[in-house]
Every structure is written in structure tokens, then in C-alpha cells.
């Protein structure tokens, strides 16, 4: 457990995944490159939620609030108030603002548990939804806002790269996703990460053996909020628009669905879940106009029969393989 990569076969799979991912844009299919960029951004969103859900055991139904907030920070800075469009200023700003507000909301909501916590997180996300929907100063409009353009990466006179290029944006997002995965892997084996998992496993005993559980939860809530803000920021850049629906509970539910599809508390669950969910959506919507119906049915069936997600299928196959060939 003390190494990052748990087995050589895992290392190979991860390497192959990144090779494929890195090679993909070279096919120069802009539509698909953008699609995969979108999926990677949703992976970041799902991974940030996993820190809370899979590792600390907190079911937040308001995670989209941070996602949308990160997007709107860019919209307000770059388009509405035209203060700056610089990547190196707006990206940290998006994360700091979402971190700040998730800290504040965390102070409120982390005193509750169970069903109450689920509902209260939803309600707070709704507050932000309505703020961005109704308040003119915050871009208030049910149609959202179109953005003036992608952020510039200029530092003085030097422009390292242009995010207006589809492939460049793709690689930028890919690097961020990989960095987040690395960060998570390190975090989870650190004392802090172990404590979070201990809280998920037995919160009462963690308190009893001397851990200030509230503080740990608050830290996890804040960090996960900041990364959701990052995902939202990237999403705004990709679409060159923002919309209050980014903060809707449907978006929060999508995050939860990705994790139950991919597997929670498993580092790669967010990535697997995001890819699977997007795939599912694409496939269903090409076949039928009523794809929501089939998605709903799929969700019901998965929850009833496969609550461990896709990863549990892998585990089962691995188990069968071992028994057959051991």
C-alpha cells in the first residue's frame, strides 16, 4: 500500500490509457476532440466529488453549485466586468472563490448528517443557482451568458500557448486531469487522506480516538469544492458560455451517477464513471428521443443490481479469472 502504483498490470493499463488519450487529438477530428475534452472535464468534476463521497463518506447533492460558480467567476471577470481574461489570474481566482464559499457553506452543513446533509447541500446549491439566475450583477439570466473568448495565457509578452486551438485546450485539460489524479493518489495515502477514509469507515470511533472530525470534513469539503470550481471553469472555457443550469441539481445528480457507475472511493472511479456516463448518454440519445426514459431505467437497474459500479464488474471478472487460472 505504500507505493502509488499498486501493481505492474495497473501501471500498464494506466500508461496505455494516457497514450491513447494523448494520441487521440492527432486524429484531428475536432468534434470528437471537443467531446473527449468535455468528458475529461467531467472526470475532474467526478473526481472532486469522489473526495467527498467515496473517501470521506459525505453525500453532497449540491456539488454542481461549485461547478457553476467556477464557471461564473470566469464569466464575470472576463466578460461581464472585463477585469481580466488571463488564465493565470482567472483560473486561481475561480478555485479560490469556490474554495471560500464551500468553506462557508461547509461550516453550516457539516454539522448535519445523513439525509439531512443530502437535502441541505442541495438547498445551498439552489441558493447559488437562484443568485446566478436572478441577480443582474451576477450575470442573472435564465439563458446564461456568452463569453467574450478563451482566456489568454500571456505572461508579459510571452504567450506559451493558445487555448483557442482545440487540440491545445484538449492537452491543457488532459494535463490538469492527470495532475489531479496524481494529487489525489498522494493525498489519499497521506495522513490526511487516511483520516478521511477513517471517517468514512467509522466516524464515531475517529472522534473517540482523538480526531477533530469536523475540521477534517470541512477541509475535504473545501478542497473538493475548489476542484469542482476548476472543472466548471474549464467547462466555461470549452463552451465559451455559462448558464445557471450548470448549478442545477441535475448536474449534481450527474456527478453522483458517474461515481456510482464508475465506482466510488476507487481513484479511477471518477474517470471511468465520466467516460461511461457520457458514452451512455451519447448512445441512448442517438437511438431514441426519449433517452431520459432509458437513462432513468438504466439508473434504477444499476442501483438495484450493480451498486458497486463498473469497477465491481472488473473485480468480479478478476475474481473469476483468478479462480480459473490460479
Amino acid at each position, binding site marked *: *500500500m*505504500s507505493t502509488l502504483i499498486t501493481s505492474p498490470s495497473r501501471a500498464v493499463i494506466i500508461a496505455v490509457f494516457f497514450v491513447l488519450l494523448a494520441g487521440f487529438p492527432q486524429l484531428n477530428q475536432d468534434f470528437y476532440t471537443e467531446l473527449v475534452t468535455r468528458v475529461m472535464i467531467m472526470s475532474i468534476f467526478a473526481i472532486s466529488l469522489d473526495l467527498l463521497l467515496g473517501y470521506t463518506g459525505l453525500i453532497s447533492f449540491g456539488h454542481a453549485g461549485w461547478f457553476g460558480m467556477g464557471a461564473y467567476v470566469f464569466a464575470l471577470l472576463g466578460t461581464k466586468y472585463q477585469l481580466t481574461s488571463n488564465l493565470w489570474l482567472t483560473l486561481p481566482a475561480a478555485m479560490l472563490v469556490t474554495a471560500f464559499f464551500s468553506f462557508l457553506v461547509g461550516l453550516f452543513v457539516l454539522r448535519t448528517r445523513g439525509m439531512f446533509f443530502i437535502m441541505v447541500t442541495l438547498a445551498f446549491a439552489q441558493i447559488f443557482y437562484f443568485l446566478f439566475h436572478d441577480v443582474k450583477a451576477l450575470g442573472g439570466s435564465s439563458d446564461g451568458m456568452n463569453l467574450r473568448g478563451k482566456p489568454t495565457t500571456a505572461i508579459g509578452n510571452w504567450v506559451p500557448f493558445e487555448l483557442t486551438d482545440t487540440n491545445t485546450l484538449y492537452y491543457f485539460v488532459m494535463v490538469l486531469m492527470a495532475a489531479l489524479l496524481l494529487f489525489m493518489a*498522494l*493525498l489519499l*495515502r*497521506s*495522513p*490526511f*487522506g*487516511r*483520516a478521511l*477514509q*477513517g471517517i468514512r*469507515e*467509522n466516524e*464515531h*470511533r*475517529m*472522534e*473517540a*480516538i*482523538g*480526531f*477533530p*472530525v469536523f475540521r*477534517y470534513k470541512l*477541509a475535504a469539503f473545501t478542497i473538493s469544492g475548489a476542484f469542482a470550481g476548476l472543472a466548471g471553469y474549464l467547462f466555461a472555457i470549452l463552451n465559451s458560455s455559462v448558464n445557471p443550469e450548470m448549478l442545477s441539481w441535475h448536474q449534481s445528480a450527474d456527478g453522483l451517477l458517474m461515481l456510482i457507475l464508475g465506482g466510488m472511493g476507487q481513484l479511477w472511479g471518477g474517470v471511468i464513471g465520466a467516460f461511461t456516463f457520457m458514452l451512455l448518454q451519447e448512445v441512448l440519445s442517438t437511438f431514441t428521443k426519449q433517452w431520459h426514459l432509458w437513462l432513468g431505467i438504466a439508473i434504477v437497474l444499476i442501483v438495484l443490481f450493480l451498486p458497486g459500479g463498473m469497477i465491481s464488474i472488473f473485480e468480479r471478472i478478476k475474481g473469476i479469472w483468478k479462480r480459473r487460472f490460479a
Partner: protein
Amino acid sequence: MNTNLLMQTVDLCRTFGGLAANDRVNISLRRGEVHALLGPNGAGKSTLINLLSGDIRATSGQVIYRGDDITSLSPHERSLIGIGRSYQKTNIFPGFTVTENCRLAAQSREPRSGHIFSDAAAWSLYREAVDDALTHVGLADVADRRAGELSHGQQRQLELAIVLATRPDVLLLDEPLAGMGHEESLRMIELLRGLVASHAILLVEHDMDAVFSIANMLTVMVNGRVLMTGTPEQVRASQEVQEAYLGSEETHHG
């Protein structure tokens, strides 16, 4: 001031609705002493141990630790100052290995939460505390097993190992022998005997043989009140206690 007096309560009360689960309870815990809490079901023993560990808030009265009033401290704050508690209903981390269970407990003493890039399992600081605790309770050979897969007796041992890994001065033990067989109970009692000199121990236990073999101080509770506090001889000789309790709640081994 008696420096062996680690913990005491002053007229500690806890009411639930109209019911006084603990009514003006006074008890003292000293280092080098095993202080057993006796009483029939509903006497208030669980409530008292919960009040001492901080799992329940007192309605009135005080809990004093090393001369300081700790009545308002939360369970985690109490753990950090040296009060450790084990639970009657096994309260471990079933999904983690035995080692990880103890390691987490040891980590609470040195949280190092800022070190987000280092591997918690690699730290010698934690490793030593884990080895100590596991060797002490006799679980060293199952260190790598998932805690949920241990036998009941082993889980009770782990329950104690977790507490020991937090290096407490006061041990609040809630039925440590619960569900254990004869052999296991004897081993546990020997283990506890080894801890007496360096800790103040409060023991809630239904196994009378165990209690009388190890306790040097007894408090008998009935209906939320302390009926009497004294040495085993004094308690055994007391008429009141005979009538109220002994003879109906005994369990014997062998």
C-alpha cells in the same frame, strides 16, 4: 493533592426526559487502580461511562481530569488529553487491516495533516506505536488481516489495541470481555493486569470472576445512584449490596 488521582466526577447528573439515568454520581479514578463499576441493567453504568468519555453531555455536575474541569470537552478533546475508551459493541474499522486500525489510532497523537504528499504507512513513528499495541494485545500475527474477518475474540482484542495505541492515562473499558470464551477472558485479564500500574482503569464488566480477580476498588450503582464505593471485601460484606445486586446478576465460568 494526590497525584495518582487522575479523574473524578462531582455530583454528576444526566437526565433523559424525566428519568435520572445518573443522579449525583461521585467516582474517583486513580493510577494503579482498577475501579470496577457494578450494577444491574439500567443502573446507569453505560450512561456514566458515556459521560466520562464525552459521548453524552452532563445535565449538571462536573468531570474533573488532573484538576481541570473537562465537563464541556468533546470526545476527541478528551482523547487528546489522555482519556481512552473501549466500547461494548465492537467499534473498529472493519474494512481496514488490523495494522491500519492501530495506525490510525496512533496517528491521532501526531496527526501531521499538513504532510499531504507523504505516505502515512511509511512512518516509523506510527509503525512503532502499532507494533507496541499489537504485541501487547497479542494480535501481531494477524496484523495484515482485514479487521472485519477476525474472530469475535480477536476483534475485542483489537478494540483494546486501538485504545492503547492512543497512549491514554485513563482507560474506560466497557465490557472488554463481552462474548469471549474462558481462555480468551483469562488472557485479557492478564493483559489488563499488566496495564494497571501505569493507568487508571474504569471497568464495566458482567463477568464477576474477572471483576473480583482484578479490581481493587468497586462502585455499585442502582437506579442511577451510587449505592456504595469500597474495596471488594467491603462490598462483598455489605448487606445493602447483597440485597440490591449480588446473587442475581453473577455469571460464572467453569
